[in-house]
């Protein structure tokens, strides 16, 4: 049996609580945890329907902020040919481009950091420059994924270069971060 409290009726509330204790004695009441009811006084501000509506509107607005910002933060993934097909739209965008390192295009001073090279896929190609340390699996002919911003010279200024190499184990993803092979754990099936 549930006990309902009426607002601002202290004395009545008191009686109801004694009833509750009698129920306890008789063993018919199961509500161990509504014992919180015992030390509560009845009443309190009700929740207005308009308050709920206002709250939902606020939540909706915040959510749309987050979501639209998410759309803007999308980093598109392209193969080189898809990227180049974008034409001038590509300039200024942060993207990820996958392609094969063309032989003979890797430029840079030995012993220095920073390399410039060209990656190609399906006939299209694009220049990439990277100031950091390239993974030691990086060499001509391997497939890489470069993430960065395309500048006005239509060169991808990369923040990150990952080298894809054939995975040893069935089904593992095959992209690597800069120098550590990033292969998934053993796949059983």
């Amino acid at each position, binding site marked *: 049996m549930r006990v309902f409290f009426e607002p601002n009726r202290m004395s009545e509330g008191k009686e109801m609580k004694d009833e509750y204790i009698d129920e306890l004695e008789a*063993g018919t009441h199961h509500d*161990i*945890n509504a*014992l919180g009811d*015992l*030390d509560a*006084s009845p009443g309190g501000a009700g929740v207005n329907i308009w308050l709920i509506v206002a709250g939902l509107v606020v939540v909706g607005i915040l959510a749309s902020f987050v979501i639209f910002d998410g759309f803007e933060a999308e980093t598109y993934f392209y193969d080189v040919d898809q990227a180049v097909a974008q034409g001038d739209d590509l300039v200024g965008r942060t993207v990820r481009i996958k392609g094969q390192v063309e032989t003979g295009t890797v430029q840079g001073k030995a012993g220095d950091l920073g390399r410039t090279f060209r990656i190609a896929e399906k006939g299209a190609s694009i220049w990439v420059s990277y100031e950091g340390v390239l993974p030691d699996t990086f060499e001509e002919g391997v497939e890489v994924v470069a993430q960065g911003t395309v500048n006005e010279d239509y060169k991808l200024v990369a923040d990150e270069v990952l080298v894809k190499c054939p995975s040893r184990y069935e089904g593992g993803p095959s992209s690597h971060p800069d120098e550590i092979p990033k292969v998934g754990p053993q796949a059983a099936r």
Partner: protein
Amino acid sequence: MTPILVFIAIIFTAMMIFQMVRPFMRSQQERVRFEILDHDLRRVGELAARKAGLLESLREVEFDYKTGKLTDEDYQAAKSRYERATIKTMRALDEIHGGRGWENAVDDELNQRIAVMQQREQAAHRAEAAAHSATKVNAEIECPDCGKQLEADARFCSKCGTTLEQSSQKSGAGESAEPKNTSTLTKSGSKVTI
């Protein structure tokens, strides 16, 4: 090392499976015992848990007040309610416990009930046997007191002299006011149906 693990696990599983089917293999008597005992055990458990919960709440209220999170008024109100509820619960517990002899009390009750049931069963069996034998021409019946074999239509025993009731009445003795498979515990007043 691992083969031992495997072995232990297999033995454990077998034991558990056995326990799983056992309740369905028990005789009716054992089942009665099972259901009744469990019911009162449950009551005790519930009350004990309630008591522990109340005590914990009391402590928390105390502490909240001491560290300034409850007003005086709220504290007094809450404290008295909790205390009274705890005392009632403890009293209820004591009643069931019956001064720590509760398990014996339940056992006594059980034995009583089982004895009554057994008597009724025997009576029913005899009634059946009597009804069965009454339909045969040369059937015989037993004297309920001394067990001497008598003729089906005998009115009293030739050995001890007890008056024999009619077989039709005997079969009626199987039914009683209470259906066979309920019983009422005197102490707690709860009805248990098997």
